């Protein structure tokens, strides 16, 4: 028995949580992703960097199941399961969380109400009992401290009248409550001043753990000096043109994207992707 368990554990360590292979995708009739290969393991934080229009957000949308993006080729496995075959809500319940670049306003629906419905949808999927109002409130209060959230925001309508910083903070707060396996942060730093950036980054860092993986999408290096990634990938023209450690982000800060973009044009499509 013990031996078997050890074996299973070793296998789990080797298996990537997320495996993207030869992914191609179209949005608005235009091919945006032209063959992406990427593996992310539990406990890792990967940064996806790249200039505007390189396909960063499209990649996030593919993972979340946004229907405006059409996958034309390739495969995405999440914990060994075919992610692309799942509806967006099943992906969410399986543990994928997308922190939106532009969080959406929903008038009349309190933040708390949406979050409780979401948390219980996830719990139900996992076979856990649903939380009642009191239990949920306790959970929320605990997680609120993490994001220095004002409790008043909970009772306000989802994102309605929130400042840019409040919206982004609210995304990370939702992530803290929903406890995902894989968090995709889509330009969470955009529109934040330095103080708000610190709060958001410290919230994200508090949520790092051996069970959770994160994909941090950003245009700028500055977020990565607060959320230090294990790996950095540079996306240009729909392909990953360079991967490395965090020093790659620093050299990008210095040199810009131009030299890598040129590389993206010259590099042939990776083997296996037509």
């Amino acid at each position, binding site marked *: 028995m013990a031996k078997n368990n050890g074996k299973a554990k070793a296998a789990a360590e080797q298996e990537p949580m997320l495996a993207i292979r030869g992914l191609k995708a179209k949005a608005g009739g235009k091919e945006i992703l032209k063959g992406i290969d990427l593996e992310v393991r539990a406990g890792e934080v990967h940064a996806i960097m790249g200039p505007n229009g390189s396909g960063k957000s499209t990649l996030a949308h593919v993972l979340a199941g946004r229907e405006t993006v059409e996958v034309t080729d390739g495969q995405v496995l999440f914990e060994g399961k075919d992610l692309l075959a799942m509806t967006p809500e099943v992906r*969410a319940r399986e543990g994928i969380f997308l922190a939106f670049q532009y969080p959406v306003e929903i*008038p*009349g629906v309190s933040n708390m109400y949406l979050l409780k419905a979401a948390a219980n949808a996830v719990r139900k*999927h996992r076979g856990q009992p649903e939380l009642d109002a009191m239990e949920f409130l306790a959970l929320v209060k605990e997680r609120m401290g993490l994001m220095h959230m004002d409790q008043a925001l909970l009772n306000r309508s989802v994102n309605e009248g929130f400042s840019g910083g409040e919206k982004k903070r609210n995304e990370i707060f939702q992530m803290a409550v929903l406890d995902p396996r894989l968090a995709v942060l889509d330009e969470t730093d955009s529109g934040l001043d330095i103080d708000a950036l610190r709060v958001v980054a410290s919230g994200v860092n508090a949520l790092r753990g051996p069970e959770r993986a994160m994909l941090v999408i950003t245009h700028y290096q500055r977020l990565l000096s607060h959320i230090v990634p294990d790996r950095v990938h540079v996306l240009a023209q729909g392909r990953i043109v360079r991967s490395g450690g965090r020093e790659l982000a620093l050299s990008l800060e210095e040199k810009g994207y131009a030299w890598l973009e040129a590389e993206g044009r010259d590099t042939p499509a990776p083997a296996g992707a037509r």
Partner: protein
Amino acid sequence: MSGSTKTLQDLTAQDYKYGFTTDIEADTVPKGLSEEVIRIISAKKGEPAFMLEWRLKAYRHWLTMREPTWANVRYPKIDYQDIIYYSAPKSVGEGPKSLDDVDPELRRTYEKLGIPLQEQKLLAGVAVDAVFDSVSVATTFKEKLRSLGIIFCSFSEAAREHPDLVQAYLGSVVPYSDNFFATLNSAVFTDGSFVYVPKGVRCPMELSTYFRINAADTGQFERTLIIADAGAYVSYLEGCTAPKRDKNQLHAAVVELVALEDATIKYSTVQNWYPGDKEGKGGIYNFVTKRGKCQGRRSKISWTQVETGSAITWKYPSCILQGDDSVGEFYSVALTNNYQQADTGTKMIHIGRNTRSTILSKGISAGHGQNTYRGLVKILKGATNARNYSQCDSLLMGDKCGAHTFPYVEVKNSTARLEHEASTSKIGEDQIFYCRQRGLSAEDAVNLIVNGFCKEVFRELPMEFAVEAQKLLGVSLEGSVG
């Protein structure tokens, strides 16, 4: 590719689940309208003479009137000679008997609708009057209410048993000459509910009427009269359904409310008439006149409506604020899906001093639905310090529907204070996707968004019905996300 548009459409396409018919022998008068038909109806009901006179006066006046065309709705001309004006299940005979005597077939019909007529099975604290086509078939909890002096019975019974009350108040809020449809109703109305709550009595349960149109080619013309005497309180709810039929059916009802000094009437409607099919075929024409008079000082009338059914809704529950310090309220959710059309709103007529009114209207349009809010706030010369707050919000789903707002204001007293707010928003694919990304199904996402939009109105409904209304809205929208 617009997969979520498809989802939106699927979501609003659910079937009307009350569309069954009851096979029951009916006592029907021949199609068409004439003095003769009116005499037959009146005789069948064993009415006192003043009722027949009143009906005939209305009929003669109606002949001089023309159908109104100002509403923002389109429908083919109605042939008033092609309608059956009286149809009653034969088993009902002269009028409602005791609950045990209700025809089992009728009882099954109401059970299918979720309205059991045995008192022990009823929702705690709700008394029901069940109207089937042209007659009331059962009224529950009558005895219990009677012990408090509250009269709750069918209109026909009231006309026979309490002619003094009926004669005093019938037409006192909606006169027989009021408008085309109300005048038609005055001539031919067949049944409805009657409520009288005596001085100082607070009605201990919700009173409810459940209207069902069953027979084909039949119009339903019911009339409801509610009187709350000084200091009384009553909360009343009406619900309605009809079978699916290809032909349109006319429902032209009149509701009159009278609140005397310090009295309060709360009137809630959950309207779920058959809306027609997805192509807009069939469905009920719901042309209804509802009006309340706050006759006494400090009286209050509050209308709450959730309108999800009918092919066409034409309805303006209104308040005449005659008593000083009286209060009128109108809370409305109107939903139009597929080819439904709604032209609905309210009139607040301020006559007394310090009168206050609140209007909160939420219109939801999906599919090819057309939703119009039409409201009038009128402040008369003597209405010193009158106040009104109006808010009209529209929610659109998809790009083939429409929302329209026509707020009218007439102010003849310079001390009046009026506020008006309006908004139009669209359920976005991005809102639905956002909720789905958090783990909610597309249906739940739409329900969440729509219920959020309607929250302030649902708050005004009695508890059990608020839940019912939320569910109903979900069902009515299924297939419409788009």
